[in-house]
Each structure stands twice: as structure tokens, then as C-alpha cells.
């Protein structure tokens, strides 16, 4: 059984349709990567899976662990095991990072240990993301996921704005969560990684890559081959594919 199965998903925000019919499947223990230009709907896709209220799902279904979660609240989805690392997390004045982590998981030792892995101990007594640099925000997001330990990680541009040294730290932490040291069949946690630059793939091996444009998934394949293709020819080639797909749809 697939961990995540999405059928014909359409979603809008502020009355504008962003996702225009997405079918997607992810098996347990697998990591998928989604490439796509700005505005193609990648963040909306992750936000719809975790149930952010700003996105309205207008059609289709999301099945997680065999349950239809399409109508569930964000809280219910997180309780089932979905976690999201935001591309642009908000700053929450007055709420200390340690207080948030304690509320999520009262195991203080685990919090201290994970903070050390990400070199985030000095930030625990600061307000969540207030005055954090881009890299610190990303590390704070991954720290929160490590404390949350969801079965499905949704990672929205985890490496953007992060220097090489810290990308390596983030990748190490993700490898721990995703049990990358185990044989693939024994891994329980899965991830969908959105990346614009592809840098994260130098550190974390993904099993499958997808290209998203204009709210649709155009195709999938080997992460390294697709990334090379995009790097060599850009998304323009994919745009042609999209237009061809549209024509086929009209013809059908």
C-alpha cells in the first residue's frame, strides 16, 4: 500500500486555481523530489497535503496510510504523521523555540540532542525565527521536524538561502529522520522535497523526480537525469511538453 496517494487533486488560493489535476503516489521509505519553476504550484502542493487553510481543495482526494484525509484539519493530518518544513516560516514573537519544541514533545533530552546535531542550541531561548538568518530559519524548520518525527516529511526548498556548511548539517539531520543508513526496504519514513536549485541532491539521494509546471506534474524519472536535463535545457523544454499535454487533453 502506498503511504501517500493523490488522485486528480485541484486546489485554489484566493479564488485562483493553482493545482490543476495532480496524480501522485509515494511509497513508504521513499524520497521524491519535485522540480519546477517559480509559481508552478509546488508549495501549494505541499500545503494542500498538510491542509494549510489558505488552500482550498476543490477536487480530488488525498489518501494517507489508506485514509482519505482530504477533509481533515491540519492538526488531524499532523497527528497521522505528516510534517512540513516551510519555505518561508513566519516569525512568532514571544514564543521561544524551546517552548514550542517542549509543547510538541516533552522529551527534553531529545530536544537537546537534536539541537546539537543542527548546531541550534544557542537559538533555543530565542523567539521562533525572530531575527534568524535564512540558514537559521531552515535549520529551525528541520529541528522542529526532528522533534516531531513525522512519517511523511514535506520539505519546501530546504536548502535555499543556506551556505554549504549548513546544507551539509541539514542533510545529515534529514538522513537521520529518513533512516538513510538502513536498507531501502526497512525505511519507514518518506519525503517529498521541493528544490529549485537541486543542491540538496548532492547530499541526499532521492528515489524519483517529478517536474511540475503550471499546476500539473509533467512527468517523472531518475532525479539525476531530470536535473541534468533541466540544467542543460531549462524548463522551456518542459513547457513544450506541457503544451503537448494540453493539446492531447483537448483532443481527448
Amino acid at each position, binding site marked *: 500500500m502506498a503511504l501517500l496517494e493523490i488522485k486528480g487533486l485541484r486546489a485554489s488560493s484566493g479564488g485562483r486555481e493553482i493545482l490543476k489535476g495532480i496524480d501522485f503516489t509515494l511509497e513508504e521509505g521513499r524520497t521524491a523530489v519535485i522540480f519546477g519553476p517559480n509559481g508552478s504550484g509546488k508549495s501549494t502542493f505541499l500545503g494542500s497535503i*498538510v491542509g*494549510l*487553510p*489558505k488552500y482550498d481543495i476543490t477536487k480530488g482526494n488525498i489518501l494517507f496510510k489508506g485514509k482519505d484525509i482530504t477533509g481533515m*484539519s*491540519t*492538526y488531524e493530518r*499532523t*497527528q497521522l504523521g505528516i*510534517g*512540513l518544513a*516551510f519555505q518561508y*516560516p*513566519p516569525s*512568532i*514573537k*514571544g*514564543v*521561544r523555540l524551546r*517552548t*514550542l519544541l517542549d*509543547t*510538541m514533545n516533552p522529551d527534553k533530552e531529545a530536544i537537546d540532542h537534536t539541537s546539537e546535531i543542527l548546531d541550534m542550541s544557542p537559538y533555543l531561548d530565542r*523567539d521562533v525565527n525572530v531575527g534568524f538568518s535564512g540558514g537559521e530559519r531552515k535549520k529551525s524548520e528541520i529541528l*522542529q521536524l526532528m522533534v*516531531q518525527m513525522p512519517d511523511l516529511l514535506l520539505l519546501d526548498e530546504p536548502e535555499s538561502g543556506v551556505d554549504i556548511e549548513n546544507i551539509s548539517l541539514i542533510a545529515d539531520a534529514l538522513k537521520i529522520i529518513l533512516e538513510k543508513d538502513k536498507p531501502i526496504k526497512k525505511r519507514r519514513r518518506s519525503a517529498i522535497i521541493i528544490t529549485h536549485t537541486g543542491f540538496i541532491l548532492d547530499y541526499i539521494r532521492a528515489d524519483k523526480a517529478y517536474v511540475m509546471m503550471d499546476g500539473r506534474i509533467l512527468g517523472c524519472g531518475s532525479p539525476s537525469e531530470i536535473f541534468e536535463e533541466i540544467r542543460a535545457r531549462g524548463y522551456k523544454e518542459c513547457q513544450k511538453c506541457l503544451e503537448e499535454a494540453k493539446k492531447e487533453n483537448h483532443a481527448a
Partner: protein
Amino acid sequence: MQPKVDKDRLLDVGYDPGIASCGRFLVLDHSILEASHGIKGLEVLPLADAMDNYPHVRDNLVFRLIEKDKNEFTKTASNLPPVGYYIKVEPGVKIDMPFQAGFLLESAGATQVIHNIIELGENSEAHIINGCTTSQETHKGRHIGITETYLGRDAALGYTMIHNWARDVDVYPIGAILVGENARYISNYAAMTSVKKTVSYPVARVMAGGSARFYSIIYSRRDSYFDTGAKVMLEGDASSGEIISRVVSDGGAAISRQMISGSSPGSLGHMECSGLLLGNKGVIHSIPELKGGHQDIDLSHEASVGRISKEDLSYLMTRGLTDDEARSLIIRGFLDIKIKGIPYTIQQIIDEVVDRSVSGSM
């Protein structure tokens, strides 16, 4: 026989015999049940006794910072025998342990009138925590509390007041503080429970090099009305003032008045009022005022009134928090003023009062 007091209600406002303190003072309605102190250089007396024993108190301290005919409440107080404390700290004596005072209103419908005098000698230091509350069964009444505070040169006072009144009680704390040269005054005020009406506008006059800082946390529930704030008058060169308030309206009204005025060179003043509206029924009215009379002063203010950000709520809910848990965390964070210069025990008491109120509201 000692009357029975509602110890639980007193604990809720920080009057806790389990906490190490340098002395205690407890009033039930108009009866002084305790006036104790255990440190050399600290004197605590019922004000009436102090006025009998010390002409200096009677002649120089009582109704000297606040005029007897300032308003109907001061007139009422001036016509009654004084009930309250006189606290004196000798010059050079520095006391880290807090002094605890409790004011309990028990007789339903009664008016409790309190008059306190605090006098800190040169280069002395003290921390006073006043807890004011009603007994469990008392919902109606009035509290008038006059406090005149005198800080000698280089003295430091942390003055914390926690209110836990009832839905049909009206409250009029009237405070005035004279902050001597290079002296430091810090006021913390927390009012988290229902009250019919609270009106409070303490005024601090600050001499050269001195500072007065006011921090307040107000949680205005349905049918509650708060008109609170502070005024700092920077009278000496290089004096400074700060007024920070956090106001939550959960259906109640809250007016926040803040004023800093100064005309002495090198003076600094800053104020912040942040308001958070939890629904459509309440109102927050922020009134900041600055008055500068010299080119070499720096006065500023920040004010905001808003609601809980939906984005912040969604974010916390992706971390596995329920809607109520996320709101509670945000409100608690909003009310978390980081106060410098008060003992850890007092900060803990304030934190507990806020935690209890916020978690109890969700």
C-alpha cells in the same frame, strides 16, 4: 482569634508563605493580620502606627506626592484612619528577597481603602510584591489603594502588583513615585481576571540619572473594563523612562494611557503598547503621549492593535498543536514581557499567574 483567610486566593496573587521573603504584610478588609520583617535595616509598620511614632512620616510622606483632594477616592482615604503599610529600608541596605503583601477583600459589597508608604534610603534596594484579591465567594466590592513611594539617591525598587479581583469589583489604585538621583524604579503590573472596572495611572517623577520603568500585562475579559497606564516625568538631566504594556481583549474593554514628558538634556523615554483582540466584542484603545521640551532628548513610542495571525496559527498547527494549543502559545508569548532587574522568584510568580490565566481561558 485570627479570622480565616482564603489562602488559595492569596496564593494565586503570589502571597505565598512557601517562598522565602524578607517580610510580610496582610490585610483582610480593613484588619491588618500580619506585619512582619526579618532583616536588619528593614522596618515594616502599619501606616497608622508609623504616623503616630514618626512625625517625619506624618509630615513629609503621607499625602505629599498625591494630593488629598485629587479625586473622590483620595478624599475618601484622607477622611479615614489609614490602613496599609509603611515600609522603610535604611540607607545602604540591599535586600534581594522579596517582601510580600496581600490585600484581601472579603466582605461582599464593602469598600477597602488602603494607603501604603514606601521609603527607600540612599543606595538601598528592595523588591515588593503586592497581591490583591477577593475571597472565593466575594464577587462585589471596591478597592481603593493609594501608594506613595520615595526612592533616595541611588536606591532601587522592584514593585510588582498582581490583581485577581472578581467580576463586580471596581478598583482604583492611585500611585505616585519620586525617583531620586540615579535611583531605579521598576513596576510590574499583571491583571488577568475579570473585574468590573480598574482605573490606574501611576505617576513617576524622575530626578537626574534616575529611571522609571513600567511593565503591565492586562487581560480584559467579557464585561471587564480597564483604564490603565502610567506617566513618567523626566525632571532631571539624563533621566530615563520606559512604559511597556501588553493588552489582550477577550471581549472586554481596555484603555491604555501612556505618557512620557521631559525637558532635561540627555533624557530618554520609550513606550510600547501592543494590543491583541481575540474576538469582535472587545475594544482596545491605546493613547500614547510624548512631550519633549529640550533639543537633547529622545522620546519614542510604538503601538499596535491587531489579532492573532492566521499564518502563525497554521504554522503551529503543522507542528501537531490543536487550534487551542496554538492560540494559547501565541497569547502566552504575546504577554511574555522580558523584565530586567527583578528577582527570579518574582518573575516565576508573574509567569505562573499568566500561564494559569491563559491556559484556563482556552
